[in-house]
């Protein structure tokens, strides 16, 4: 879940070109203003500091100067969630090293550096900038699979793919290693980067094995394990394992079935009152989670000894659809009953135990533009990448269950439909794969979830392409849709955003808020302001 949110956050982020100008922040302003910003573009030099799935601040990492032939000095600035500069410290690093990942665990920062000559280095710093510990991995010890994983992190906009906070006492690192074929390794470190424990695939395994981290906290770690015979086969075994966060020992395997019995695919896992709540989709026997449509949702509660306390399957046909008919009003019913797939972005568990699944409808349909384009190009003999199909992204969906896993609400929140054009050949992809594709290219309108667990308020922010304000012809600069879940009840609203800046964007902010970045080119000024999402 953390991984998913962090990716989303990064994709929204536009940061400063002349990042060193962050020093000039005017702290006493209602907006954080950075003067003399010549240009803005995407960079990996700034980011959010996340603690316990909550944004607690921002960091800015920038080059200061070369100090000698081999080393350069960098400055790290830490800002709290109100954009107040709290700490600034310098670190000296080999001049070609790149910071590719960073994570904060509430006590210290773990920064991952990569140097094409020397290899990997993971260093922890406390909040005063004091180096706590370092783990170096020489280049020759980095497996080619890890190198591929690293390259993907460096070239993509995503972050936090391989390191995660383990409570506030340490971190875990996920690595692909060379076994007989390919395997995985999950290693836990304390805040001084001393290894605490390790959990890895069998070194003699003849399968390709990979582990996807679904949830990490100081009590447990849930991993999704994948096994396949070779890289080309579509046949794969899927399982999940629950580990004890303190020692890395396996608590239990979570049965995810198989193609014969019927597969399961985990969407989300979270700790609720010392039990692990796992939510996912299930498939009928013979179907594959990669290419077929799921049969419904499963909800499973497992205690920390591995015992399943409660489990329930809820079918799309016969259960969810019947509920929808009774629950939705006439207008929403039309939208709700259309044959859409749902891509689930997030799962929220409120303090009263109710579970909210936040999804977005999508479906594959014939693309008029794609067909026309293909027809035109066939005449001219040129090649064309456009597919004859497109993805129609439609409404937001909220599915609610009570603490006994009984379906209690199904709500469709209307928004303007948008299209995502597919590359050629994508018309044959399964709906699940298409969902992941649309997600990966940022084609969904869901932006982020802002959570305030203590106050039991969650705001799900999405963008509605219908910019018309209520009861008027006026179009706002952007129409934000906000689903608010407060004390176990959800409401939805449309909130127009207007700005005088020509270049602007929204960004994730502290719980309950949205950050609006506004760049005034003429004044060379960048403003960041916070707006409250729910009261």
């Amino acid at each position, binding site marked *: 879940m953390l991984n998913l949110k962090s990716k989303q956050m990064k994709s929204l982020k536009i940061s400063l070109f002349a990042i060193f100008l962050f020093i000039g922040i005017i*702290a*006493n*302003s*209602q*907006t*954080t203003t950075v003067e003399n910003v010549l240009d803005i573009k995407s960079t990996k030099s700034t980011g959010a*500091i996340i603690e316990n799935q909550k944004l*607690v*601040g921002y960091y800015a990492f920038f080059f*200061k*100067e*070369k*100090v*000698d*032939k081999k080393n350069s000095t960098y400055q790290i600035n*830490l800002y*709290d*969630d*109100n*954009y*107040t500069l*709290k*700490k600034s410290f310098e670190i000296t690093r080999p001049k070609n090293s790149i910071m590719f990942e960073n994570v904060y665990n509430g006590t210290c920062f773990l920064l991952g550096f990569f140097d094409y000559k020397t290899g990997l280095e993971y260093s922890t710093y406390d*909040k*005063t*900038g*004091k180096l706590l510990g370092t783990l170096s991995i020489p280049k020759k010890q980095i497996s080619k699979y890890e190198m591929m994983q690293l390259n993907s992190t460096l070239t993509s906009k995503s972050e936090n793919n391989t390191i995660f906070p383990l409570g506030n006492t340490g971190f875990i690192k996920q690595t692909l290693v060379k076994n007989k074929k390919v395997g995985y390794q999950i290693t836990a470190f304390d805040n001084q980067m001393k290894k605490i424990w390790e959990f890895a695939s069998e070194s003699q395994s003849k399968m390709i094995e990979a582990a996807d981290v679904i949830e990490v906290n100081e009590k447990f770690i849930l991993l999704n394990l994948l096994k396949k015979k070779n890289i080309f086969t579509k046949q794969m075994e899927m399982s999940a394992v629950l580990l004890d966060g303190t020692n890395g020992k396996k608590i239990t395997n979570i049965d995810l079935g198989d193609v014969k019995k019927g597969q399961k695919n985990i969407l989300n896992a979270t700790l609720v009152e010392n039990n692990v709540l796992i939510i996912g989709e299930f498939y009928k026997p013979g179907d594959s989670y990669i290419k077929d449509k799921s049969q419904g949702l499963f909800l499973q509660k497992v205690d920390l000894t591995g015992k399943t306390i409660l489990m329930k399957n809820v079918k799309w046909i016969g259960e969810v659809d019947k509920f929808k008919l009774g629950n939705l009003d006439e207008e929403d019913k039309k939208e709700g009953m259309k044959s859409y797939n749902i891509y689930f972005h997030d799962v929220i568990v409120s303090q009263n135990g109710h579970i909210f699944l936040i999804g977005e409808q999508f479906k594959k349909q014939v693309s008029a533009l794609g067909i026309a384009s293909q027809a035109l190009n066939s005449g001219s003999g040129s090649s064309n990448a456009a597919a004859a199909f497109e993805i129609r992204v439609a409404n937001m969906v909220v599915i609610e269950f009570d603490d006994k896993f009984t379906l209690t609400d199904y709500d469709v929140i209307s928004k303007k439909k948008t299209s995502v054009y597919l590359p050629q050949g994508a018309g044959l992809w399964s709906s699940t794969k298409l969902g992941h594709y649309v997600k990966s290219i940022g084609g969904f309108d869901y932006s982020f979830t802002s959570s305030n667990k203590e106050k039991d308020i969650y705001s799900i922010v999405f963008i509605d392409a219908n910019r018309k*304000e209520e*009861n*008027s012809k*006026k179009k706002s600069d952007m129409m*934000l849709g906000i689903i608010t879940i407060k004390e176990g009840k959800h409401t939805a609203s449309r*909130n*127009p*955003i*207007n700005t005088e800046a020509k270049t602007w964007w929204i960004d994730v902010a*502290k719980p309950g808020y949205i950050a*609006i970045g506004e760049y005034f080119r003429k004044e060379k000024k960048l403003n960041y*302001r*916070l*707006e*409250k999402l729910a*009261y």
Partner: protein
Amino acid sequence: MSFLGLRLLLITYIVLTSIIHAQKPSNQNQIEFENIIKNKYEADLATFSKNRSNEDFKLIKEVLQNRKENTLYLLKNNYFILDGELYDFVNAVLNEIQTKNPKIKFKKLIIVKDESVNAYTSGEDLIYVNLGLLFRLKNADELAFVLCHELAHDQLFHFEENIKEYIQKSSDKEQEKKIKQIYREKYSHVSKLNELLLPGLLSDKKRRRQNELNADSLGYKFYTKTKFSCKSAESLFELLEKSDTEKDTNDIIIKDLIPGIESFVPISKLKLEKYESSLGAFDEPSDQELLEKKKKRKELEDLLRSHPYDSERKEKIKQIFNLDSSQVKKVEVLSKKISTLIGYNLLEANIQANELSRALFNNSILIHEYPNDINLKLLYSIEWAFLGFYKSKMKEGTVVHLQNEYWSKNYNTFLGIVSNLSPKECFTISKKISESLNTGIKSDINGKCFKLIQEYLKGNYAFYTTEFDGIKSEFKNSIYEKILNDIYEDAKFKK
């Protein structure tokens, strides 16, 4: 011409001249100040450029042009108070000083609509006093000493000295050579530049701090010739010592200012929330090396101050004052009328600067002090309505400060409460305040704005649009122009 005709002509003449006279002071003042600024620019350019190289002339012109343009910008955009009752009060203090010290070159006063605690002069025959300073003063004696200090700066040609220093530093060929040498080197550009430039910067700051003390001494000489009391001006230095922090206030409890608020705002939203940074406290480093670094940094920060360390200044001036402490003069405490006038102007300046949360906070303090003042309540009601409107349009962030460690505890608490209130709750607060204001509302710009807002809050959108169409021109270039136009657009869609 008949008698009636003559009478008509006379009446027309009186009406016309009275209209012209009513507008004249403001326009005349604008033009007069504009001329002072422009003439001084020409005169200073001629004086400073004598026997200077072309290169120096360019630098001088750039500095003086910046000064002129910045001042004219503020003048044209209504950031200065150039007349009115408050202006007359401050000007009377300035006149008293100038009359009793006839050798001082005559200066004109400008009150700046700025909340920072400051007064300054930039060699333009003008003395600037910020509203923020006036808001903190207790008596006219403190004000008189501030003005004497600024007049002394002018008399000692400190602005001219700063320009000369700037030109000398900018045309230092030796230093330029050293900078080029650093850039030719391969490593540590930033550190080496710091090393080279820091001593010059520190000596410049030291000179400026000495200038402040010199201005205190000469200012004191001017001051003793006036009717103002040394003893009561002493408190000014207590004030200056705290000028980096906010004005001390009693706990402002919103629920005490708005009776019955608990009936429409959940008590949890009125709970005092203290400010804590999301990154928590940053512990003192235990490492000796880091502690040393921190200490050095603090020392450097002190050395970079352009004003004397507060305690040093206070001690020095106390020594001078004590010499004459036998002089007992009458202390002129600021009257309620002047204090509230400063308050109104400050609130309007806050609104003009888009600092609505400051306006609300300052207004809360003022209502706490003057609970029966109708004008303060009227502004308070308008401010709450504006806040509700900005919140409803997701523009709260443009007018409300974020909590941070630089604000006072009380302001941070206030911000915590304000951010929790919904648009509807802000509108209800505005309405509740307005209920106590049925009589005594003037038909000035504030009164008209108040009435329009109340109609909007009642849902009389048609009335708002029609009324606003009729009086729109009266709000032109006022602090309310933009927001009332935005509300007008909203009312047009809602009606």
